[in-house]
């Protein structure tokens, strides 16, 4: 059983099918970037990208993701280690306190920017409306980030950071 994580193949041998993707990353491979909060799909701390789309790795069975491209927070920076515009924006806006939810927030927001670019609606997007990164409202950002809870309540700064990254990308 192999998993492709942040561009690298990892051999997990004969993996117990009960192992979630989150536990495979942390417990089996020692890749601690992805965090475990609730372990039940209720907080978003474990968010990773699978083939470019965000999911909760705590509710995914690792065996079901053989052959998929998995991106964790460690795979968001450029190859030379330069942080992404979104990561820069999180630092600039102090979009965290303890930082426990941050890996999930970053994966989620990275995906959010791509979803908006592709024109994918949220429940707040009026039918038939065109979406643009530069005009994304705070309500849209909040709705699209609602799957990532922050115990420290850094929400205001997270929204500001996502807005800045959206404007930078537009």
């Amino acid at each position, binding site marked *: 059983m192999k998993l492709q994580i942040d561009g690298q193949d990892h051999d997990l041998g004969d993996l117990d*099918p009960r192992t979630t993707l989150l536990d495979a990353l942390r417990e089996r491979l020692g890749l601690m970037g992805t965090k475990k909060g609730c372990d039940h799909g209720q907080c978003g701390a474990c*968010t990773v990208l*699978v083939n470019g*789309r965000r999911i909760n790795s705590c509710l995914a069975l690792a065996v*079901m993701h053989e052959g998929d491209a998995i991106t964790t927070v460690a795979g968001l920076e450029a190859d030379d280690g330069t942080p992404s515009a979104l990561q820069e924006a999180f630092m600039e806006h102090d979009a965290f306190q303890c930082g426990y939810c941050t890996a999930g927030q970053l994966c989620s927001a990275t995906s959010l920017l791509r979803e908006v670019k592709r024109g994918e609606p949220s429940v707040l997007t009026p039918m038939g409306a065109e979406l643009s990164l530069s005009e994304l409202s705070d309500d849209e950002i909040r709705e699209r980030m609602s799957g990532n809870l922050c115990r420290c309540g850094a929400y205001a700064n997270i929204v500001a950071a996502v807005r800045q990254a959206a404007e930078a990308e537009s």
Partner: protein
Amino acid sequence: MRPFEYVRAATVEDAVTGGDRFIAGGTNLVDLMKHGIERPERLVDVTRLELASIEEADGGGLRIGSQVTNSALANDARVRERYPVLSKALLSGATQQLRNKASTGGNFLQRTRCYYFYDTARRCNKREPGSGCDALDGFNRIHAILGASEHCIATHPSDMAVAMVALDAELLTRKSDGSTRRVKAEALHQLPGDTPHHEHVLEPGELITHVDLPPLPDGARHVYRKARDRASYAFALVSVAVVLVTDGDAITEARVALGGVAPKPWRAHRAEAALKGARVDRDVFRRAAEAELEDARGHGDNDFKIPLATRLIASALAEAAGLDAGDDR
């Protein structure tokens, strides 16, 4: 979690002969397995089946593969244009992360969020038939006001299925003997009666392959409204799907379905009967809503759902008729 055997099905044939329990997005099943509530011995992974596309159907409808994710279905331009109530219901549910995994088939068959069903230290007739129901005298704020029984007052939590029922969707299934059948979305789930552990009419090993959406009359107006404890990432306390067709001042067709209030996505037949042929009018809408809730019964903490559902139905109808701007939520 109990040990289980895992197989990945390559074809529908493989899937239905490979075992009697399927896993798609896993967003409900894996959670319940972690709690020890679901204990499958063998799981057939159906996510790689060629059932992930949405196609035009004869006669102007759409055929949705059961492996289409909730987000792909909500984003589809044809669904947005022709079945906006479905897109809105999907996007009202869960979060982007969950919708990216959740499948059309799995969403229908997700199980209740009743706290006592999840808490294996409590009594629950659904989890352990005959053990009793701790929700009856417990915290039952999220529980059913329609269609429940003295054995179980749990609700079906789906948003998508409510829109599907309003749209007269039909499921296509395949059994292990190779036979296929069609099941109306409205007829998929069963009321609890004295067997709340029997939740739907599908047999073990019967795979949902597709969902058919029939065409709608021209000019149908769609509304989905959801009342919940926080603005996002929360299950419905009450939700309403409305598809309304009017001719001038007259209602020619009204379809209303409710979520969060019953053990199944609830088609509001009484409200519909009161609306058909009636005038577009706020009083008509309110009386139709009251007719639907006439037999509703609260259990204490959830009594508020009766007036809430009444108001939400009336206001969703007004929005569909263009009398109300709605809050677009």
